[in-house]
């Protein structure tokens, strides 16, 4: 009989613990790239977030991640999210996912993105991303669409980007010739 009488207090906690590990449809919330000095290099938000909230989250999260020691776990609990981060040279790549998602595959997702950047720029460094951040965005958009992996084939992602680049160059040259 005791269980019927728990009241909503008890019920609330029970439901909380029950849903904790149910399978969700998992969507990435956002991705950030920032430097060791705490400068934001790239941000992509997959869930509508207000400007003010974004700034606050970026500031807070950078602080938390930068304070982590090198040998620590690549995952951390932050607010109601799981943050997966990895440092490549001077740059931190940081993804926020839901707690039920697979942290390890997100880590690989970051790595795949870095590989793509590397292949595109030819041994990428932070400066490439600073000065060509729009390219970095194009590659990201080709790789992740709305926070979901769009294509796992490295070749086709780069092919799409190069195709667009190529067309662009041709068009750009054409239009410049016209102008002349």
């Amino acid at each position, binding site marked *: 009989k*005791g269980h*019927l*009488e728990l*009241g*909503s*207090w*008890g019920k609330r*906690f029970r439901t909380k*613990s029950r849903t904790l590990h149910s*399978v969700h449809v998992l969507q990435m919330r956002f991705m950030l790239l920032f430097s060791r*000095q705490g400068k934001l*290099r790239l*941000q*992509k938000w997959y869930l*509508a*977030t*207000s400007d003010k909230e974004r700034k606050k989250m970026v500031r807070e999260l950078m602080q938390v991640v930068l304070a982590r020691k090198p040998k*620590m*776990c*690549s*995952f951390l*609990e*932050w607010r*109601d999210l799981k943050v997966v981060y990895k440092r490549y040279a001077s740059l931190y790549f940081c993804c926020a996912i839901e707690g039920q998602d*697979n*942290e*390890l*595959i997100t*880590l*690989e*997702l970051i790595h795949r993105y870095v590989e793509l950047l590397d292949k595109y720029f030819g041994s990428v*460094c932070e*400066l490439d991303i*600073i*000065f*060509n*951040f*729009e390219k970095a*965005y*194009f590659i990201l*958009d*080709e790789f992740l*669409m*709305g926070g*979901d*992996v*769009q*294509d*796992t*084939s*490295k*070749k*086709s992602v780069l092919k799409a980007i190069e*195709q*667009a680049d190529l067309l*662009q160059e041709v*068009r*750009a*040259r054409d239009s*410049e010739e016209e102008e002349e």
Partner: protein
Amino acid sequence: MSDIVEKTLTALPGLFLQNQPAGGPAAPKASFSSRLGGLVRGITALTSKHEEEKLIQQELNNLKATVSAPTTTLKMMKECMVRLIYCEMLGYDASFGYIHAIKLAQQGNLLEKRVGYLAVSLFLHENHELLLLLVNTVVKDLQSTNLVEVCMALTIVSQIFPREMIPAVLPLIEDKLQHSKEIIRRKAVLALYKFYLIAPNQVQHIHIKFRKALCDRDVGVMAASLHIYLRMIKENSSAYKDLTGSFVTILKQVVGGKLPVDFNYHSVPAPWLQIQLLRILGLLGKDDQRTSELMYDVLDESLRRAELNHNVTYAILFECVHTVYSIYPKSELLEKAAKCIGKFVLSPKINLKYLGLKALTYVIQQDPTLALQHQMTIIECLDHPDPIIKRETLELLYRITNAQNVTVIVQKMLEYLHQSKEEYIIVNLFESILVLNTVDTYAPDNAWFIQTMNAVFSVGGDVMHPDIPNNFLRLLAEGFDDETEDQHLRLYAVQSYLTLLDMENAFYPQRFLQVMSWVLGEYSYLLEKEKPEDVITRLYKLLMNDSISSETKAWLFAAVIKLTPQAHSSNLVERLIQEFTISLDTCMRQHAFELKYLHENIELMKSLFPVDKSCEEMVVDASLSFLDGFVAEGLSQGAAPYKPHHQRQEEKLSQEKGDFFHETSSLKLEGIKKLWGKEGYLPKKESKIGDEVEAPPIPQENLTIENMDQVITKRDQSQVLTQSKEEKEKQLLASSLFVGLGSEGTINLLGKADTVSHKFRRKSKGKEAQREETTSAHSVTCSSLSSLSKVTCENNYLNTFSQLLDSESLTELPLVEKLSDCSLSAPSLFADNDMEIFHPPPSTAASVAKGISLYMHSNLMEVCNNEAVSISSYKIWKDDCLLMVWSVASKSGSELKSANLEIFPAENFKITEQLGCCLPVVEAESTRNFQYSVHLEKPFTEGNLSGFINYQLMDTHSVQLEFSINLSLLDFIRPLKISTEDFGKLWLSFANDVKQNIKTSESQAALPSALKTLQQKLRLHVIDIIGNEGLLACQMLPSVPCLLHCRVHTNVIALWFRSSCSSLPDYLSYQCQKVMEGS
């Protein structure tokens, strides 16, 4: 910083060169690039934030001028856009450029368009109004013959698109599913997935096309379609069981390496695809043996194939384990999965260890022995330097808590709480602690319980949810099943609080102090050695402390007031009165005056603040009828009659607008402090406190440690001897943590061990308690004011109403037409009763149908039975009363003699027998009905009818069988059919009102459906619907009306009840909330 600058400067020329296409147009391009470059370089060279701000502001001003200048070419615009994006990324506002981003996407050539679209996707969010301007561009680009343009349009659509404009592009995107290029098909599928997420109804008709995408010859398109399937299967797995075979086949091919090599990632075939498929299979196989059987093979292969050489294989393994434990279990697979978890947990890599713990946490509910296998690792993780590992370990421990290890686990959690600074984690963690403490009945004894709660309150008092202290107090007040035990608990709490207050230089959170003051106020009388004066002295010290918030002071003062009548000397109280009657805080001053006047009459005060009555119902005469004489006198002397606030408001409004029906909001009450609410004080705000009185403190840790020791000694110690000291400690900890989990004990794993005393289960105080819980934030009832006078609401109806009743007979209510769906929905009202549905023999059914089919009735429910008879009952909600029918059915082979049914008289009800209840012989397998009409005499919240039947079997002597049935006030609520105008008149004449907002899901937001729910489940009559407002009325038998006005805002329904009876609106608002949130 400086080395970065240097690097930047040296790298710059190279970068520009690299970006320059060979030949002619190099010059303009370089100049554009260098502008961003210049900006970046400029910023990097700066040393202060202030300088950066200045530079960016300057840059933004330049940009603003450039983008709005008519001479700016699109090419320049594109360059400006890049710099704008950069400025926004640095955190500056560049909103003036948004519209230009849209223009650029619209007008530019490919090169510019791409940047335009990118800027739009970064600048705007889904609900931004400017986004509507983009729709035409997207439509145009979707129709373009240029692949790149189509790709761009699809990309932007899947990132941000206004929901209401989906129909404009949907057909175009659907067409793209047949496109010859796989990249277009893939993006189209993902765009549709996005639509499915934001507006599932709009893409319902293309489900069949999703199936085609699933069978696409291109792997990318197929993989994209899995996103949609995962979502759809999650919502309704049963509709897609037929696809299980296909998913299994796909996974087999992927695992078997049948995909093109460029889908490999570090030589693992398409890991993302595998994970997606494993998730889908997990959902499909859940609780479904037949479907699960289809996937055993492929799961087995997945587990086998994933050779452990790379993180990505671990990622797949983790998902695989998850799936194996989600679907219908197969022991062989479970064994393999458990082994995998072992690899994770034992891995030296910290990321894998973390995932191992996570997997264990998930799996542990099904197989607690796994925790035993890894207990030493878990212990190590508990002291891991990385807090996230600790955190996950605690989560794991939380799931294996039982009566034996609860002390140790809670101890560990509290340790973590002391260290952690993250607010979110704190809140989460002590919610867990509280569950362990109170709800799950593991708490070993009073002292432990109070000490733990003290620790929780002192650490987290200021961040915890206000429900937590309130619930704790209610728990204390309502007690458990054993009254002497309850008193011990309370006494212990009082003593421990006094000790805490006596500690020097101790600071406690405000909430904790509030808890203390309430408990001290209520239960100090239990103290034997200390006098109430001593307690008041301590409270007085706190009251004089400046660092205590005025909210807490109100609590403290209330405690003093409660203790005053018990105290023998009143010096201190008088000093307090003196002190606070001149306080600048009006709230405190009022309390002081209240106390002053009450203090003049100690006898009255004693009756007002009786000892230990906090759980008694408080009856308040809301109509203030005791003032009638005074009012009559005033009126006779020519005073203007009093008009209630709302009436004045309505009159004012109707004068202004000529429209009487508006919600009132103009009178501002914010500045005025409401001191006493229905449930006690209504306080606010907080700060910090300190106090200084010396006395021997009770060491907090004492008790927990003792308990831990006891637990430890229970375990055998043979293994302990051989190990080092550190190892020993760990072993000890392990044995105390995992006690009760092992197979040796064969204790009911994870389940609640039966040896635990049940004293920490809350005793029910009926629905009333639950209602308080949901409706009030400050649910601690104050024991004062309870005996003022009795409710006299029935005297209160107004002439208008009786006239109404005369003019329209209530029996003509059109109930019959609703009978069919009402009797269908009826069980939801009675779901609480949790009884089996009794299928009546045909004769009963016939008699029900014959006699009373005109009225709504509940289902037949069995109330009691034995080997010879079965008694069931149902309720018939007649217009003027509740008709209870008990139907006695004798079972086969037994014949009843002189069956007789009697109902005990009950408080609040008048029960009348309808037909002759005595019958000589009940033949075998026949039924006999007894009918009683129940009239309401007094409003109540929880009622109960009980009675007994006695009968005689052929050969034995008479048998008596008792039964009882719950009645709810809802049984006496009937629709009230009045016109809109009468509603208006009645509305103004009722004094008792209750307002409540109920959040609803969007689907419910439509007013008609909400009203329909109320009509069907609560039997309210819908009078009228005007726009987004609805008018409803009902009456409590015999004739107490209650009116309801609903108004729908976006997804909130504002309910506003008014009635002549004070308790009815409260009750109905609670019921409304229940049915609306339940449905």
